[in-house]
Structure formats: C-alpha cells, structure tokens
C-alpha cells in the first residue's frame, strides 16, 4: 500500500528511493547525526557517545513501536505515561516490599500494562469517544490508583528493590558498563513489530483500519479485536520499560514516566507516521527514535543549552510532517503516471 507497486519498476532507482516512506526520516537522521558528530567530537563518536543515545533510544523506542502502530491504525495512547510508573511500582512492591520471587514481580508489572491496555481497547472500540480522551482519562485514573495503593500499602511513594544477579543481567545490566541491556530488547521488539506490521496479514488490517475504519469492518476485519490487541501491545511495552527501569535503578517511584507520552509520539511522527493514520513503517519509527535520541544526548556532548535541543526536536517534528506530505504527494504523482 505504501510501497511502490512492481509494475512501476521502470522508474529510476533514485525516484523509487524518494518514494519510500522512510526516506525523509533517514535524511533527518543523517543530518542530525552529522551535525552532532561534528560538534560532539571523539567522545560522542566513541562507545560512550553511542551507548548514551542508544540507551535513551531503547527505552523510548520500545514504547514508540506500539504507539506508532496505534497511530497507523488511527488511534492515540496517552496512558503509556502512567503505565510506566504503575508497572514499576507493582514490580517493586511485589518483589521488593513483599519479597516475592523476581518472576512474580515481573509478571505482575507486565500484567498491569496488559490490563490497562485491555481497558483502553475496550473503551475505544465499544464507545465513540476518541482514543485521545479515553487514554487521558485512563492515564489519570491509573496515576491516582498507583499513588493510592503505594501510600496505602507501603506508606510512601517510592519502593526500593535490589534484584538478583540473573534478573539484573537480563533487564537492568549495563553491558561493558555502558550499553543498557534494554538496547537488545529494543532490537527484539523491532523484529516482532516488523513482522507484525509488514509481513503478517495483521499488518494489512492495521493499515486498513487507519485508512477507513468503516470499510475495514465491512471487509470482514475484526476491527475491535485489532484495536484491543494494539492497545494491549502498547500497555505491555510501556510496562516492560517500567519493569526494566526498576531493575536498572533499583527503585520505583509513583511519579515520572510522563516524559514518555510526548517523546514516543515525537519519535513516531519524526519517523514519518501519518498522524491521521493509514501510513507509516517500523523502519521509519526506529529512525525517528534514533534521531530523537541523538538530539537529546548530542546537546550534552556538544555542550549546548538544553533548550536548544528542545528547539531542534520541535523543528524536526514540523520538518518531518512537511516532508512526509511532500514525499506522499511525490508517491501519489508517481503512481498516477
């Protein structure tokens, strides 16, 4: 649907590349990386620099993948911002406060995400309330519940937990003292989501849903189940990041996580996903995430004012949307030839 059809192979290779949805994101990443490589110097180009922005990219990237899929299907998920602290609280509470095995804590944390995602999905597919509003509502409820239960059960708003060596090495270790193990998890998630969106029939359903929900339903696609599944995926991924943060920082906190809401949306949009649904790709989302992370970390290596970083992110976001429109009209014109 977004890739150029085979009969158009006569177009030049360059033209075909320009029509790929990822091209804009790739260009953006290359420019940003070159810019900070120039300013950041050898430390930024070395392992410390790479691991620094990859660690950031991995966490926001794990959440950006399902958020991107949801956006392709025409939905938003704001609630990820409260699932991250809720799941890390659950894990630390079960394994740290009640001293249950790590596996129980992890399972508990992840199921928080799945349950919240299920509630989101059911509310969005059974009512006509826009997902933006549903997930904002759910976010505040989850925030309140997290705080309430934390104070009720622990009497404080933060819980410490020191994981055993195996759990720590799987979820919170710094490989070589620098690279967070979550980078590997991110790659795993990328593979799974790539398969789901681009290789399995499920992916076509997601695109169809974002294109026209009514037609998708008429064509026999189980729209409600797809929507619920996507929201559960984003809940799960947000919970995964929450659990991994407990293992990394050995502490859970009811606050925090809010940054992931806008950051994940920005990664997705910079990655070329159409805000109104129906277009986007996993490679684009990954590139968008990497661009976001490079800017975020690059400013510290370049010793720039952090506010400049925010300006660059904002400008990139707008540039991404404009160039997406440009590339899309290019694709449509090529297809109409």
């Amino acid at each position, binding site marked *: 649907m977004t890739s150029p059809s085979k009969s158009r192979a006569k177009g030049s290779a360059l033209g075909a590349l320009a029509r790929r949805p990822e091209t804009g994101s790739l260009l953006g990443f290359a420019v940003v990386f070159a810019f900070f490589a120039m300013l950041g110097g050898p*430390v930024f180009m070395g392992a*410390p*620099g790479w*691991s*620094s*922005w990859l*660690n*950031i990219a991995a*966490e926001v990237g794990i959440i950006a993948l399902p958020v991107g899929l949801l956006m392709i299907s025409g939905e938003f998920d704001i609630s990820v911002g409260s699932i991250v602290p809720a799941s890390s609280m659950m894990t630390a509470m079960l394994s740290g406060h009640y001293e249950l095995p790590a596996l129980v804590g992890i399972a508990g944390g992840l199921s928080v995400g799945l349950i919240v995602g299920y509630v989101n999905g059911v509310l969005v597919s059974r009512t006509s309330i826009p997902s933006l509003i549903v997930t904002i509502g759910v976010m505040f409820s989850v*925030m309140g519940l*997290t*705080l309430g239960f*934390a*104070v009720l059960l622990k009497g*404080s*708003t*933060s819980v*410490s937990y020191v994981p055993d060596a195996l759990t720590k090495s799987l979820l919170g270790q*710094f490989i070589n*003292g*620098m690279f967070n193990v979550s980078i590997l998890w991110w790659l795993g998630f990328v593979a799974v989501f790539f398969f789901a969106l681009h290789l399995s029939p499920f992916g076509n359903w997601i695109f169809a849903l974002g294109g026209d929900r009514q037609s998708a339903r008429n064509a026999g696609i189980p729209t409600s189940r797809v929507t619920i599944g996507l929201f559960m995926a984003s809940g799960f991924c947000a919970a995964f990041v929450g659990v991994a*943060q407990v293992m*990394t*920082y*050995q*502490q859970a*906190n*009811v*606050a*925090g*996580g*809010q*940054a*992931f809401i*806008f*950051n994940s949306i920005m990664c997705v949009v910079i990655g070329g996903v159409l805000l109104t649904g129906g277009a986007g790709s996993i490679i684009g989302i990954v590139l968008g995430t990497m661009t976001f992370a490079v800017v*975020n*970390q690059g400013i*510290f*290596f370049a*010793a720039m*004012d*952090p*506010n400049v*970083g*925010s300006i660059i992110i904002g400008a990139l976001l707008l540039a991404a949307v404009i160039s997406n429109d440009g590339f899309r009209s290019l694709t449509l014109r090529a297809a109409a030839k």
Partner: protein
Amino acid sequence: MKLLTVLATSAALALSATYAVAGSHGGANIFVVGGKPDDPFWSRVKKGAEDAGVVAESQGGSVTWLGPQNYDNLGPDAAELIRQAIDQGADAIVGPDWVPEAMDPAFEAVVAAGIPLVIYNAGGIEAADRLGALNYVGAVDYKSGYAGGEYLGNAGHKNGACVNTLPGAANIEAFCNGFNDGLAAAGGNGSVLQLPATAFGDATAVAQAVRAHVLQNPQIDAMFAIGDQDTNATISGIQQAGKAGKVHVCGMNFNDSILANIQQGTQACAIDQQGYQQGFFAVSILNNHVMYGTTIPTREILTGPGVIDASNVELVIAGVKAGAR
C-alpha cells in the same frame, strides 16, 4: 416532585459541604499548598501537615492539601491553587514561594483578605517579610546547597557540577548557587548542568545527561543533585561513565535506597531538610494562631540542613524504622 426532592437534598448537601469548609464548627480550616502528593519528598511534608492537622480536626477544623498535577507550569499553577484556597474560605494558608514573580501577587491577595499566612519550604524569611506572612518554616535552600558544596569541598573534591532538572524554579537555582558557593568557600569551583524540562522525572534522561557531562568534562569530581530520584539517576550516570569512585555525589533529601548508597559508599552525603517538620510546624503555628492568637517570636524556623553521611547513617536508618524521619 421526586426530582425536586433529589435536587433539594443535593443542594442541601452541597451547602453543608461549603459550610464545613467555611468553618462553621469553630475549628481552623487550614489550606496547605504544596508539591504533587506523589512526589516522595512532598508526601512526607503532607504527612507532617496532616499529623499536625489531627489537633485541628479535634477542634473541629481541617487541613486540606492542594498540589499541582504536574510541574510543567509550576508558578502560575501554584498561584492558582493559592487563589483557590482563598475562594474556598480558608482560615489560614500555608504555601511555598517557589516562583516569586508568579506567586507573590496571589500571596498578597491572601494577606489583603486578612488570612494568616505562613511561607514554608521555599522563599526564606525574605519572602515572609516581603509578603507580610507570619513566619517562614523550612530549610533555606541556599544553605542546604551550601552544606553539600562545603562537605564535598572539604573532602578534597574541587570541581563540581549541580544537576538542575527544573530550570527556572527559584529554589532549585538557590540550591545550585549554594552548592557552588559552598564549594568555592572550600577552595573549589562549581558549575550548573541544565537539563531540558522534559527530563524531569525521567531517570534515564537524567542519567544519560550526567554521563555525557562527566565524559565531556573529565575534571569534574563532585556533583550535587536535588531530590531522591535525580540523585539515584546521577549516580547511575556516573557509574555508566566508568567514573564510580572518581566523581562524588551529594544529594538533597533521602530514602531507603539513598541510605543504602551512603552505607555502601556510592554516595558521599545527603542533605536533609526534614520535610515532615515543615508541614508539621507550619500547620501547628497557624492552627494555634487562629484558635488562640499565639505567635512564634522566633522568625525563620529552620528545619535544615542536616548532613547525612557514613558517620551517622545508621542513626538515620534507626530513625526511619522508628517512623521519626
């Protein structure tokens, strides 16, 4: 008819609720403006305020906590909460002067309405004097930061950086200025690492920023962070930079994991402003003032700074277990 009865009942309920707030029972209804209730530090302040509120409640009064949903728009949001407290008929108000430019007009409105006011947590006695408040209860942020800088400087660490995750907030800037001055007094010099506002509350963002900063500035051997979470994240960033043991960290406030860090030696010191006491004394002073007209002649009630390091950490842990800290 039935609908009318329902409406009348709910109107009556609403009215009685309003009266309860307005203080028809004779006690003092005290409104406390503070941080997010889910902020670890502020939950302790809130507990102190509520514990002091037990006395107010026994006299028929109440303590109501008003906190912002987030810190994105701190000054205006907090000013709005102060005005809300006035509108809800507070008999006395406690509030922190975080962003004087935005909040002072609201505090002036409190005093103009004849409502007794205590400034706590941020602003210092200067704010209390300027605004006509009864008193100031709290640690002086500048002195807390100073204590941290002095401690690290005296330990022989001369190049410092203060992690500011909330640029623009007056109290955080005072912490950092104090830290730099304290360090300078001990013969070192300090700088400030400014983070974008989006990093607040995101441990990974803070850790990676710290890490990049210490890698780019290898001369840094001392850091100061404000709050439990930022301190933990700062330590993680230093470890990831391979600088554990080379860069020494002091932080504001403490919790279980901070105390464990101090025991293990991964953190040099924690500066305690004893938040519980801030809430407790601010509410007590106002309750006694409203009920009996008493005043505290001592101006500027200091609740900190207290330095926690390896030498006294066991005592503090015992205090936590006893519920005193």
